[in-house]
């Protein structure tokens, strides 16, 4: 099962976790990552954040990430959900969950998806601070 979604609305972590595990008796290891808007990004006091994306390409890149992860690691189910639009402090931004028969593959696949998403999925963050808005620059 590959679940890919790009959406404005918040996601339900428990529902996504259940989707990975229900009717799944082959996978003993489930690793999830959730990224959230945190207090200090690059030294600025964040009030809110706006996430722009490239509609169409975003979904295609996330789907290809999931398909490649299934080839590279012993993982059976993958769920990737990324939000766009305006987000506030502590809001959830991204969910990546994987299930595998093996702990090491579950960790490796989840981390590889996040690392690759960060460098190749077409999202851009703009921070809204007391001083105005500014685009976040890549590391």
């Amino acid at each position, binding site marked *: 099962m590959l679940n890919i979604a790009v959406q404005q609305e918040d996601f339900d972590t428990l529902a996504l976790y259940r989707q990975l595990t229900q009717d799944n008796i082959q996978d003993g290891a489930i690793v999830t990552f959730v*990224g959230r808007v945190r207090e200090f990004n690059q030294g600025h006091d964040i009030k809110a954040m706006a*996430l*722009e*994306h*490239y509609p*169409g*390409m975003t979904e*295609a*890149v996330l789907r290809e990430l999931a398909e490649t992860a299934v080839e590279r690691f012993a993982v059976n189910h993958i769920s990737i959900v*990324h939000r766009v639009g305006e987000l506030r402090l502590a809001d959830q*931004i*991204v969910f990546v969950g994987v299930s595998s028969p093996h702990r090491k593959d579950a960790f490796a696949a989840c981390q590889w998806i*996040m690392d690759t*998403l*960060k*460098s*190749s*999925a*077409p*999202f*851009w*963050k703009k921070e809204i601070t007391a001083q105005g808005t500014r*685009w*976040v*620059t*890549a590391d």
Partner: protein
Amino acid sequence: MLTVLFFGQLADILKCRSLSMPSQRITTVHDLLSILQDRDPKWADAFADDKLMMAVNQTLVEAKHPVRAGDEVAFFPPVTGG
């Protein structure tokens, strides 16, 4: 014709999110970049950034990638999602 898209800070700098242009004389993304840079000095600066990312038909590519009539070509700063 080509559809050309700009995202993130690049769109803000150019004050442009998309444009259409004839595909004659353009065989690679690099050719398209040269034409965009010739528009005015601000565009020249914006496209001189060697960290700029580019995509043809929604797939990341290098500047040497071929471009054909009907393609959707996008330029954007390094991505910052996740």
